[in-house]
């Protein structure tokens, strides 16, 4: 019967189109990263060409400057670049590397700290409020106990989050390959492939696991907000405010912990960047995330067990 209940919940997600909506939303956001990366390559290449033309038109020694180093000095009014031709050449190379198949997936996953709270929060909210909205909870809790139904909803949320993440990565990766190929027609890629060895802070499996952890955490938080408010709009506004409006609340803030770990897991070579988090530690960051996950799960389980199926 539990197997049938899982099947029913998964089919519910498919028929209600929420899985497709989440997948499209996530792929579209990954698409924005691709678009930004494409533009970054084109823009920095144009800037490079501008300097190259300047060198040529003024009879300056381009080759000797290209062998040199660049320096960026930041000050109040902005930044001053010494030897900009090298800076722009390396920037083109860096963005090309970010757009390349070697780094694409990592760059999508770097965006997990920005997009996943909202995308997977909406998924969790939808899963928890769908039966409340249609009052179908009182049908389902006849055939399954409330606790079994709650556990099954959590399980399907875990499965669907993983499937949506992987499929969105695959779709976006394929589109990314096409975008990367299209760059060949605009930029002489071979001239800009950097000699710099871009090291990776962690393996791709760790990066995917980290992305999935954020997806899971916020789908769980979304689920709990849905159970708590019984309303999707209130839940979406809450997640939006927390993610994008309310400033960081210190080292015990969930966002600080996520940013701290993200900085350790990802390299942020491309267009995605996050501000440096307030100083914290691995143990503190890990504990905050774990506690948020556990508290969220416990709240939803308690409400599910206590609340009547008719209290919709």
């Amino acid at each position, binding site marked *: 019967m539990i197997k049938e209940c899982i099947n029913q919940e998964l089919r*519910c997600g498919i028929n209600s189109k929420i899985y497709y909506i989440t997948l499209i939303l996530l792929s579209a956001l990954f698409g924005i990263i691709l678009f930004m990366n494409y533009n970054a390559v084109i823009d920095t290449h144009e800037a490079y060409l501008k300097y190259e033309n300047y060198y040529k038109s003024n009879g300056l020694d381009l080759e000797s400057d290209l062998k040199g180093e660049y320096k960026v000095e930041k000050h109040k009014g902005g930044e001053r670049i010494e030897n900009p031709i090298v800076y722009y050449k390396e920037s083109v190379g860096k963005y090309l590397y970010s757009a390349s198949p070697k780094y694409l997936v990592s760059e999508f996953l770097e965006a997990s700290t920005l997009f996943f709270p909202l995308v997977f929060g909406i998924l969790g909210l939808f899963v928890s409020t769908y039966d409340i909205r*249609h*009052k179908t909870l009182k049908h389902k809790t006849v055939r399954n106990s409330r606790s079994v139904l709650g556990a099954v909803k959590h399980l399907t949320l875990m499965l669907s989050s993983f499937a949506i993440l992987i499929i969105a990565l695959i779709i976006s990766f394929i589109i990314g390959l096409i975008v990367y190929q299209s760059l060949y027609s605009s930029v002489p890629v071979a001239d800009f492939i950097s000699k710099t060895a871009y090291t990776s802070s962690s393996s791709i499996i760790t990066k995917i696991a980290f992305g999935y952890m954020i997806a899971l955490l916020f789908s769980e938080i979304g689920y709990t907000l849905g159970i708590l408010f019984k309303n999707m709009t209130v839940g979406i506004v809450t997640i939006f405010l927390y993610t994008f409006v309310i400033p960081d609340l210190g080292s015990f803030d969930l966002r600080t912990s996520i940013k701290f770990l993200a900085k350790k897991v990802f390299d942020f070579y491309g267009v995605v960047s996050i501000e440096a988090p307030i100083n914290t530690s691995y143990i503190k960051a890990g504990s905050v995330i774990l506690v948020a996950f556990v508290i969220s799960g416990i709240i939803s389980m308690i409400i599910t067990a206590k609340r009547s199926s008719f209290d919709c």
Partner: protein
Amino acid sequence: MIQCMDLSKSYSKKCVIDKSNFEIESNKISFLMGANGTGKTTFIKCLMKMENYKGKITFDCKNINQVREKCLVIWDDCPFYTNLSGITNLMLFGENKKSKKQIIEIATKRLEYALLKNNVKTYSYGQKKKLALALVEILQPKYLFMDEISNGLDFDMMKELKDDIKRWAETMTIFLTGHQFSFYNELVDSLFAFKDEQIVLLEENFSSCGETLEEIYDKRMH
């Protein structure tokens, strides 16, 4: 057989069901009468353990969690996913008990195929009831509870439903609540009623008592 022992249910300080002891016999049609707000729906919620209660309820000596997959409740408001079609709803709630072809066959006996393809939000109250009744045929539960099932049904459908309920009772334990006594008169085997917050068995063999539900209600409930 469904046994209720010392069943009590109250909301805050308001007692709805008070220490009731009775049995609902297997493969019979039992009917619970009571005025609006007496607790008929609450009793069904207690049976399904959707509300906390005091006392004990067993289904052939088993607790509800051991027999849930054999239970079905047709609620008065017939909840379905209104943004999905009737067929999709039956496929979802049908729990793979029947194939799509079989589900369509069962459902088209009550509703037109064209309507079944439409979203449930376009259905009338009666059409939603018919959809819920198709679910009975699909799931074929052992314990069937129907809350005010005759509400919203047209005359032809009520006639058909009477025959269906009699047929279902051959294999199912059926428990009904409602107010349209004329509909239930021909169906009821055992008659239960609310009396001073207690659920009591009024007639074990209603059909042989020679009275109608209306008469019993007038005489014994006032």
